[in-house]
């Protein structure tokens, strides 16, 4: 009987410095990939929505609850000490992972969406006044649009949007012109979730900084696929979600430059974010704790730490190289199908393949592919402005991670043939 293991083969790289990327071995670490959907091996191509978790991450969370769990930061007993140590160790791990200057610049939040809302509230509310501007791009996910709309509405500010080309790249000249003396913040995606475009973030940060404007980068789609160095990028804020990085849901990270974070008002009030409380006056805790009110998702943080260990053990550079090859293969194979139109043709792409197929609605493509065991996403991908820009209501989106294979791409192509058969 065919299993999913029979469909995959390792992709071998000839050079000595890049030993064979043994995708077959890595897939064994992901128990969920071993199942069948509608009688066919699961082919999970919805990684931009969320990634699957290796056994090591699941075990780390289970281990916490079996052995070490206790509330953190306040207890004097052994279990509390163990949990606190494990939790703070992950903070340092993340600091190294994104090469932040200090571990107090790493704040744990629920996810990218919460990180952006935090900045909109704690930074934006103080800094944005009537007539001031926030600049974003057409590529943004709703999480990097709506918090700014809410801020502008509350403060009577103005949201400006940098346009994108037909290839799905931000028009840098327009971007630069749109940064005015009233601009208080630029917010932009590192990698577009709808198109896969990789923005030239370092360059865009430099442009903004020349005009003394800080930059927030939405790294949700970048961090699973590329090594990120926040000091090199010199961005002022960087955020990402744990669940897209092979970690659990409910946890994410906001990085902010220490000086900025110190100048910001708290986001949520409660326990842990205070130094002392009286009814006359409350003194807030120092960073990062000032922004971590209440009991956090301790297990989530531990799981995220295990996910980072897992990814580091493979190496993000190796992952990036493998994925580039896989995406290149996928783009070629899918583009060759008559009737297919690929959206997102930037010079640099990561992970995402967004496409249309003749008159067939993406929702119908998705249902038929599901019957073949293939999981893609169909819809506007929380990026309605991108859809509007290209005059479509929705696209079909296949998004890859390092555990996907060329054989799975072939199966996707076969699945699309099946879609054509149903509709012709």
């Amino acid at each position, binding site marked *: 009987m065919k299993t999913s293991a029979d469909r995959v083969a390792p992709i071998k790289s000839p050079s000595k410095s890049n030993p064979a990327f043994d995708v077959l071995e890595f897939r064994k670490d992901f128990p969920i990939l071993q199942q069948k959907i509608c009688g066919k091996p699961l082919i999970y191509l919805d990684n931009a929505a969320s990634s699957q978790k290796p056994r090591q991450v699941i075990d780390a969370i289970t281990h916490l609850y079996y052995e070490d769990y206790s509330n953190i930061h306040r207890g004097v007993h052994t279990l509390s000490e163990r949990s606190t140590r494990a939790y703070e160790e992950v903070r340092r791990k993340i600091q190294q992972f994104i090469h932040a200057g200090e571990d107090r610049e790493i704040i744990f939040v629920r996810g990218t969406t919460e990180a952006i809302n935090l900045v909109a509230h704690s930074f934006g509310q103080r800094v944005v006044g009537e007539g001031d501007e926030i600049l974003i791009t057409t590529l943004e996910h709703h999480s990097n649009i709506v918090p700014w709309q809410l801020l502008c509405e509350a403060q009577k500010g103005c949201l400006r949007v940098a346009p994108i080309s037909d290839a799905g790249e931000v028009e840098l000249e327009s971007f630069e012109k749109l940064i005015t003396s009233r601009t208080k913040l630029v917010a932009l995606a590192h990698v577009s979730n709808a198109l896969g475009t990789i923005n030239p973030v370092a360059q865009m940060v430099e442009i903004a900084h020349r005009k003394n404007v800080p930059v927030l980068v939405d790294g949700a789609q970048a961090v699973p696929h590329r090594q990120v160095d926040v000091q090199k990028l010199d961005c002022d804020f960087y955020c990402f979600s744990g669940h897209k990085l092979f970690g659990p849901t409910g946890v994410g990270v906001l990085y902010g430059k220490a000086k900025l974070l110190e100048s910001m008002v708290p986001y949520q009030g409660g326990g842990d974010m205070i130094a002392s409380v009286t009814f006359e006056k409350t003194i807030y805790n120092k960073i990062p704790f000032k922004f971590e009110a209440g009991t956090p998702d301790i297990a989530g943080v531990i799981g995220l730490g295990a996910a980072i260990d897992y990814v580091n053990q493979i190496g993000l550079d190796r992952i990036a190289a493998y994925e580039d090859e896989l995406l290149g293969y996928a783009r070629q194979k899918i583009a060759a199908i008559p009737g297919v139109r690929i959206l997102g043709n930037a010079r640099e792409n990561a992970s995402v393949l967004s496409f249309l197929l003749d008159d067939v609605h993406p929702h*119908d493509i998705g249902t038929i592919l599901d019957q073949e065991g293939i999981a893609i996403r169909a819809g506007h991908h929380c990026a309605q402005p991108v859809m509007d820009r290209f005059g479509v209501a929705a696209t079909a989106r296949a998004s890859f991670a390092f555990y996907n294979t060329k054989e799975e791409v072939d199966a996707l192509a076969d699945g699309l043939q099946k879609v054509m058969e*149903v509709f012709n």
Partner: protein
Amino acid sequence: MSDLRDLYQELILDHTKKPRNFRRIERTGSKADGHNPLCGDKLTVFLIVDQGRVSDISFDGSGCAISMASASMMTENLKGKSIAEVKAQFERFHELLTGNSSVPVDSESLGKLVVFTGVKEFPVRVKCATLAWHTMNAALEHQEEPVSTE
């Protein structure tokens, strides 16, 4: 395991490719917009009610095969019916897609609409099939706010 043939039957595909009553009716106040934000189906349903009967019904918009076929077959089915019959049909169709499987289907009243029975096996797609009907209902009641499947 569900069979795709239950969902994408010949009749449904025919209505997707050649939707009936796919036009706007400009001179009517009975119209409503509906959309399925999950996947981007957007419809407008137009009605002319004359002496308690639906004398004309049409739709406009774009969406997935199921939503378009459902809208098309709905307009065919409802033309000429009285308001009371339209409302009863709405309940029957809704029951067909979301109701208890053990309740017998009123295939005589539903006619060709029974072809949507298969949608039940694809729960994610039920909202696509019911969108046109909810929108039609809103048009009937002159609702101001666009209908959403959320």
